[in-house]
């Protein structure tokens, strides 16, 4: 509920709230209170940038799923008659690369790779983070100490570089790529989960549940988890563009999955033919940027929706 506007609070700069106090007859009725999730969704929807980004991101996902059906060519289909063909060449709307492969199609397959790896990696990280974070937060003890020790070590070391090392170890497959990125990034999320659990542990409904004899796991899953989801959802949604960037970066270094196309690899290839065929690099870079921005803005929107006062920034 809003607080009253006294001049002292104004001078002190306190945000004096937005909701009117219920009043006597003549004032419009307050809207019926909505649940927490519905309100967050309302706020998200009001944020036009975030909403538009969500639609765009959804579109990307759909395109990625149906890429093999949409793409005019297979990604490794070569056309030796039209190598390094420029934009607008017949049959190749966005041109071809050095082997005569259609750029547009490779873009679509690249999108597929990017999103597959990103969602997969983020899911991995999330699962790891949830399990470890919940246990560390709720049970504490050895698990918590190990987690905190991990974070201390990982704090200093950049996760992208750790992913590079992991890929070297795990090999070059799609699955190992997903694992590598996932393992490199679970730690921060686990900390967040743990922090949430610690806060929520003190809440009364948890104590009530415990008094009624509920077991630890039950409490953790049924009471704490649903309420912690907000912030976790936000970090997960921020993790996706990070994972997309990680996948592209790894591909750029030559550590990607051959021969499946990846935007990062396309950029590296494009560098080599920069002057002769700049379109090889332009389109992957543009699409990459747009995808990243879309998912980032969705994340921003989610964060603002769940925490409009911006206190947790």
């Amino acid at each position: 509920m809003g607080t009253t506007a006294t001049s002292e609070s104004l001078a002190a700069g306190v945000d004096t709230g937005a909701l009117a106090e219920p009043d006597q007859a003549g004032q419009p009725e307050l809207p019926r209170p909505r649940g927490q999730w519905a309100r967050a969704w309302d706020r998200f929807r009001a944020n036009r940038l975030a909403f538009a980004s969500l639609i765009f991101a959804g579109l990307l996902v759909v395109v990625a799923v149906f890429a093999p059906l949409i793409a005019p060519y297979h990604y490794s289909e070569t056309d030796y008659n039209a190598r390094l063909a420029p934009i607008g060449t017949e049959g190749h709307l966005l041109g071809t690369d050095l082997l005569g492969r259609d750029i547009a199609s490779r873009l679509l397959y690249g999108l597929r790779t990017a999103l597959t790896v990103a969602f997969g990696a983020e899911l991995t990280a999330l699962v790891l983070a949830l399990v470890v974070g919940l246990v560390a937060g709720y049970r504490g003890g050895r698990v918590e100490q190990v987690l905190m020790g991990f974070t201390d070590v990982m704090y200093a070391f950049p996760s992208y570089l750790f992913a590079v090392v992991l890929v070297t170890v795990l090999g070059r497959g799609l699955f190992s790529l997903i694992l590598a990125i996932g393992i490199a990034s679970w730690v921060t999320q686990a900390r967040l989960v743990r922090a949430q659990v610690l806060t929520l542990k003190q809440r009364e409904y948890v104590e009530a549940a415990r008094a009624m004899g509920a077991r630890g796991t039950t409490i953790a899953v049924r009471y704490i988890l649903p309420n912690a989801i907000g912030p976790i959802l936000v970090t997960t949604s921020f993790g996706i563009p990070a994972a997309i960037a990680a996948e592209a970066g790894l591909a750029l270094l030559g550590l990607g999955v051959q021969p499946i196309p990846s935007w990062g690899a396309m950029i590296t290839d494009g560098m080599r033919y920069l002057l002769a065929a700049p379109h090889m690099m332009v389109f992957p870079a543009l699409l990459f940027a747009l995808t990243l921005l879309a998912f980032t803005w969705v994340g921003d929107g989610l964060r603002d929706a769940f925490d409009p006062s911006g206190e947790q920034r």
Partner: protein
Amino acid sequence: MTAPTSAPTNVGGKAGDSEPLLSLRGLRTHFVRGRETLPAVEGVSFDLAPGRALAIVGESGSGKTVTVRSLLRLLPRSARIVGGEAYFRGRDLLALSEREMRRVRGREIAMVFQNAMEAMNPTLTLERQLTEHLVWHGVCGRAEARERAIRALADVGIPEPERRIRTYPFQLSGGMRQRAMIAMAMLTEPALLIADEPTTAVDVTVQRQILDLLVKVKERGTGIILITHDLGVARYFCDDIVVMYAGRVVERAPTQDLLDDPRHPYSVGLLDSSVELGDRNRPLTPIPGSPPDLARLPEGCPFHPRCSMAERPACLSPQELLPIGEGRQVACWKVRER
């Protein structure tokens, strides 16, 4: 409905005095919040004679701080001074340019704040903070300023000032910090000192020290405006009291007169709910209700919803400050009639 601009009786001056040091007429300051306009100060007037002390008293949110900040033009960006004049040494402060105002601030009018820990920069030494404005105003050079600062610290009773001046604010005790802040303000020998709740954030023993210090300041001929919600503090050395409520003045009187015989129902309530003053055995009666929301002020007298003597329809029209005796004014039609 016009804004009340009563001609103030010279509260704070004796007959035959020279011109008042400060003459505030009809100050109106509004805050803009989204589409709303909040009248934080609505028609405040008072005079202050040189060498006298005036207390502005009222609950939190009555507009006391906004009033004095308007004088110095130190308001947040959402605030606008929409009316009034503030004559100080022959000039209207509210009409000065920013550059001219800067010359007044800290030099002719100085201000001390409630919490010295927050009002002093934690990463600068005392020397730096105490001397910088002397240099800004061209009073003297750095070296001389340092000497003056040391002497000022000694004046306010801080031991070992030559050593202390090289320390940081957090290294002083609360009382010393508060006194150092006063020393800082007085270094430029201003004609007017504004003290915004200088004793609220300190404990009782320090309160006494601060108040005695302010007495000394007054004896040196500096005018003082003291903001407080504590009538006991006001009584200590202030000559006159202005009682504010919801951005308006509701009563003005010499201190002793007000404390002996408050007239406005709000002033009565303040005294009845005050711990420090009065008979120990009488029951404490807080004023019912709470200060009004500036966005939704009651019609007419802002106090009437909480007033035990309220009568409609008379209380629904705006109350002007009406004289009721030597140097006294009250903004309540009912009191006048008595």
